[in-house]
């Protein structure tokens, strides 16, 4: 027993020691290192994924590179390099708080619980949860999943909603999208739930897209934001100015068109309501 108490004390010492190390703001950190480190996904097309040419690309990454980085360069008056690190739902908040990354730019839903721990940029994309099913599946939406085996991504808000709304559904939670899709294509599960846009992306990237269908109405509201360390408003302002300038100037729409347009990776037209919503977030200069 004495030994275990010793371990515990050691562990708590390590945890508290990391708390003493930080006194600089994110902007100071970036200024000193010359690098903006973002945490992003590598299997969530078209937001952030590894493409056929083995490049790490996506809508979220483009937004950082083409809208936020220029503002950051101007603010710090030097060329800042972009570095990408892999993040997952379970690791993204620790990555931020431990200073391993400065910005989470992937498919993270802005929620009140998360705002206790991190700060979010303005919303840069809006979607909601749906189901990916085999064509002709009896699963037509959240109303028809009772007793069915449903795959979800652990750490997502969708699994939480299913557990609360349809407790009889058998939820199987995977760590990432590829494993969940594998389970679906092997018929281990009847449907896979995730944000609608991600399912559309998955379907578009599947070997035979026609075998799959995205089913049901949105059963959740998922506003995507970029996450940052809490109480660092100068950096947050840079990020928001980058996004606002892009929305106001039309640059955002160009990037949107590249990924979600008719010729994009995942055709998903911007609805007039969503466009209006994005524009309303832009405050005057």
């Amino acid at each position, binding site marked *: 027993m004495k030994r275990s108490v010793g371990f515990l004390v050691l562990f708590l010492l390590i945890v508290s020691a990391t708390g003493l190390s930080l006194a600089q703001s994110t902007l100071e950190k970036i200024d000193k290192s010359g690098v903006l480190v973002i945490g992003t996904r590598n299997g969530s097309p078209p937001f952030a994924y590894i493409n056929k040419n083995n490049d790490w690309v996506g809508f979220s990454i483009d937004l950082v590179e083409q809208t936020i980085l220029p503002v950051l360069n101007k603010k710090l008056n030097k060329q800042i390099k972009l570095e990408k690190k892999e993040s997952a739902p379970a690791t993204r*908040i620790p990555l931020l708080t431990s200073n391993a990354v400065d910005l989470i730019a992937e498919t993270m839903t802005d929620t009140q619980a998360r705002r206790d721990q991190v700060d979010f940029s303005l919303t840069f994309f809006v979607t909601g949860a749906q189901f990916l099913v085999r064509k002709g599946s009896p699963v037509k939406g959240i109303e028809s999943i009772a007793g069915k085996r449903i795959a979800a991504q652990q750490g997502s808000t969708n699994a939480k909603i299913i557990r609360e709304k349809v407790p009889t559904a058998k939820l199987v939670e995977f760590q990432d999208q590829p494993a969940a899709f594998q389970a679906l294509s092997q018929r281990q599960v009847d449907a896979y739930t995730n944000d609608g846009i991600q399912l559309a992306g998955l379907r578009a990237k599947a070997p035979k897209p026609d075998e799959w269908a995205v089913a049901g109405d949105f059963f959740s509201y998922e506003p995507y934001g970029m996450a940052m360390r809490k109480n660092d408003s100068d950096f947050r302002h840079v990020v928001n100015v980058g996004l606002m300038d892009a929305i106001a100037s039309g640059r955002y729409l160009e990037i949107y068109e590249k990924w979600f347009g008719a010729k994009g990776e995942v055709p998903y037209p911007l609805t007039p309501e969503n466009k209006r919503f994005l524009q309303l977030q832009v405050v005057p200069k």
Partner: protein
Amino acid sequence: MNYHFNWSVLWTGQTGGWLLQGVVTTLQIFALGLLIAIALGIVAGALRTVPLAPLRWLAGGYVEFFRNVPLLVWMFFWYFAMPPLLPQGIQDWLFAHGVEFWAAVCAIGVYHGARFSEVMRAGIQSIPKTQLEAALSTGLTVGQAYRLIIIPIAMRLIIPPATNETVNLLKNSSVALTIGVAELTFQTRQIETYTAKAFEALAAGTIIYLILCLTVASMMAYVERRVAIPGMIAHGQSGAS
């Protein structure tokens, strides 16, 4: 660090229940996996030392194949590749009764069985050959000599390295989260999802694993003292030989 610790998330609402469920599932995987691992380990370990070449090759093949492929790969194998090979009736039954859990038990049991068998072999080979010869000269068959003499002695010898393996098995049960088994590590991530309190959840998981492993280790130490044959196996403290 801009992080506000709030340890009460670990016991408010559902989180306490989740941790408890996680511990129960982890212990279930541990117990069933350990049973398979020990059974396979004893058989394969003993077979690797018998004076019959084909049996040695068979056991050697099992050990080399299973211990040299990462556990994660075995996890995916038992979950994704195994069920489609089974008849439809068994598949349906498995899908209705938590196929993830059974795949995890098989993956961990068979993988650790290969590792256990090496521990077992080391134990058997540390027994002087004359012991077996003496047993055979009393009229026992090879099978009887192993069952009654060699394996009981070897089992006592291997308790320290077997403790290592047992604790490893317990910790490796966390790999099951990759195929969606709601064990302890999975539940700590679940708490992170619901409360955004990653450090608290991880700390809780760490401490629970520590307690479980220390318990296993002290139980094994107790067993070691209880089953020791006085005068037979040398102990540092007693100085007997």
